[in-house]
């Protein structure tokens, strides 16, 4: 039956893994907000310039035709996710996923304005008052400001951030830019402020299929049932063995700190995002009780059953080998990337033209794309038919750094050499570097004999 989701109030807990998670959150968010401000050679270091259809990545300029690199990069990212999931479980979910990271930041703001877990629960139950309004309003103010800043930063990956900042200060932002900024800001606000763990539970495909990458040697967070049960409260002076109790004092702290609201003692559950908050919580209690730490801990299924954990297993070799091969392919193809691209399009409207002196003429559009960052001079030539010449082209053409030059050219050949269809080849050669030559095949059509 329908039951609306209850709000989860994760309790704050300090500890080893909390520090790790704070470090991850701050460095990942810091990276996201800082990168658009970086400069490289006087332009934004990372900029996906969609209006110009160019991607700037540090010293590299990528074009739409470089799309395979992006596809390869995405495949590598997916495969690394598989690799690390098989090795160490849901590290991604607990420490690196944007959903987790932004939720963490939003919970900090919530704690800052509304206080601890119990204060927040009391505040929500309390009737509206000035204090409640002030706390709620200041939380909303922080959330909304942060979301807007996030939207602004997101858009800045696609629009130069300094110009964008000036436009915003002048209240003169382009329609689509404004729209996407608000869109992303609102998505952040909704996902990190309100949806939180529901996204992981109901909307995330990875959360559902990650168990396929799990085996008995995968690092998981687990409660040591054999050590903990039977659970029960007791005073610190009581020896648990004498009282017939395990080490779990049933304090509920591991449940209260859980951001997805599960009880880790019920075993491995797909809702668990492996944030390790329950480890910190349990360790703090074990310290207080002067029991050894690790009643809830990072372990493997094999380890829990006193078997040996194997890190090197066939699954790891398969994922690892594929990763190495793909990374190698990416690096090699990037290194072999030609700094110039030649594109030849034959004019489809006319087959050929007959000129005086028994000459036959074909028309082409030549595109020279200079993928380097400096302007360059190129010479253009054609071969494949005896005596074929180009007309209407200067000896040298200048193409700007990162620029495209579109040239209409006429190729001419004597009709005795060019009957029917002949294969020809266009060549561009950099004037300053004779080793930089690109060829492109095309066809020359003449009258049928």
């Amino acid at each position: 039956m329908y039951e609306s989701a209850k709000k989860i109030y994760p309790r704050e807990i300090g500890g080893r893994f909390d520090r790790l998670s704070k470090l991850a959150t701050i460095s990942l968010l810091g990276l996201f907000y800082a990168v658009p401000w970086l400069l490289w050679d006087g332009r934004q270091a990372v900029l996906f310039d969609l209006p110009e259809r160019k991607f700037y990545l540090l010293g590299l300029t990528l074009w739409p035709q470089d799309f395979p690199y992006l596809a390869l990069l995405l495949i590598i990212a997916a495969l690394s996710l598989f690799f690390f999931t098989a090795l160490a479980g849901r590290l991604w979910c607990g420490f690196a996923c944007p959903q987790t990271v932004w939720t963490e930041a939003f919970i900090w703001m919530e704690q800052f304005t509304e206080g601890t877990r119990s204060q927040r629960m009391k505040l929500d139950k309390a009737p509206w008052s000035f204090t409640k309004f002030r706390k709620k309003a200041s939380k909303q103010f922080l959330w909304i400001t942060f979301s807007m800043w996030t939207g602004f930063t997101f858009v800045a990956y696609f629009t130069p951030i300094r110009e964008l900042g000036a436009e915003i200060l002048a209240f003169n932002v382009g329609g689509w830019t404004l729209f996407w900024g608000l869109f992303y800001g609102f998505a952040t606000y909704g996902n990190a402020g309100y949806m939180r763990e529901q996204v992981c539970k109901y909307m995330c495909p990875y959360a559902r299929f990650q168990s396929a990458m799990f085996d008995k040697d995968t690092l998981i967070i687990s409660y040591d049932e054999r050590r903990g049960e039977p659970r029960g409260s007791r005073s610190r002076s009581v020896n648990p063995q004498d009282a017939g109790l395990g080490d779990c004092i049933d304090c509920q702290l591991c449940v209260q700190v859980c951001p997805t609201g599960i009880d880790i003692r019920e075993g491995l559950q797909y809702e668990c995002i492996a944030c390790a908050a329950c480890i910190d919580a349990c360790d703090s209690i074990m310290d207080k009780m002067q029991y050894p730490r690790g009643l809830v801990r990072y372990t493997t299924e094999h380890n829990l059953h006193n078997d040996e954990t194997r890190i090197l297993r066939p699954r790891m070799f398969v994922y690892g080998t594929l990763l190495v091969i793909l990374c190698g392919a990416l690096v090699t193809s990037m290194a072999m990337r030609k700094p110039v691209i030649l594109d030849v399009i034959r004019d489809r409207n006319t087959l050929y033209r007959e000129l005086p002196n028994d000459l036959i003429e074909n028309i082409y559009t030549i595109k020279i794309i200079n993928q380097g960052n400096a302007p360059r001079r190129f010479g253009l030539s054609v071969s494949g038919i005896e005596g074929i010449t180009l007309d209407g082209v200067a000896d040298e053409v200048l193409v700007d750094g990162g620029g495209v030059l579109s040239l209409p050219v006429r190729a001419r050949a004597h009709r005795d050499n060019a009957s029917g269809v002949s294969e020809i080849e266009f060549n561009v050669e950099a004037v300053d570097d004779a080793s930089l030559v690109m060829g492109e095949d095309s066809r020359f059509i003449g009258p049928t004999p």
Partner: protein
Amino acid sequence: MIDEEYRGAKQWSRDKQAVFTVVWISFLSAAIATMVFFAVFDPVELSGYFDEARDLSRDAGYAIGFFFFWLLCAFCSGVTAFLIRTAPKRDAKHRRQ
């Protein structure tokens, strides 16, 4: 003796799950489709095919493309979810016999 207050979230209703999952997954698919599509086609060149007179900017082209893919994907997964959710149950037939 776990205090119900501590026991976190109960479930979303099936309808809410279906709606949000369809919207989110089609959003992701649309993002990928937009990326692949516009890596090959330039919106400015494309707009010429549909309407010579209209001068469509690239920004608008990308946005229209994205929302078109989002709608298309949402339609596809929405209908799929609907058909699966409303299909007659297999064991219902057995029970009648």
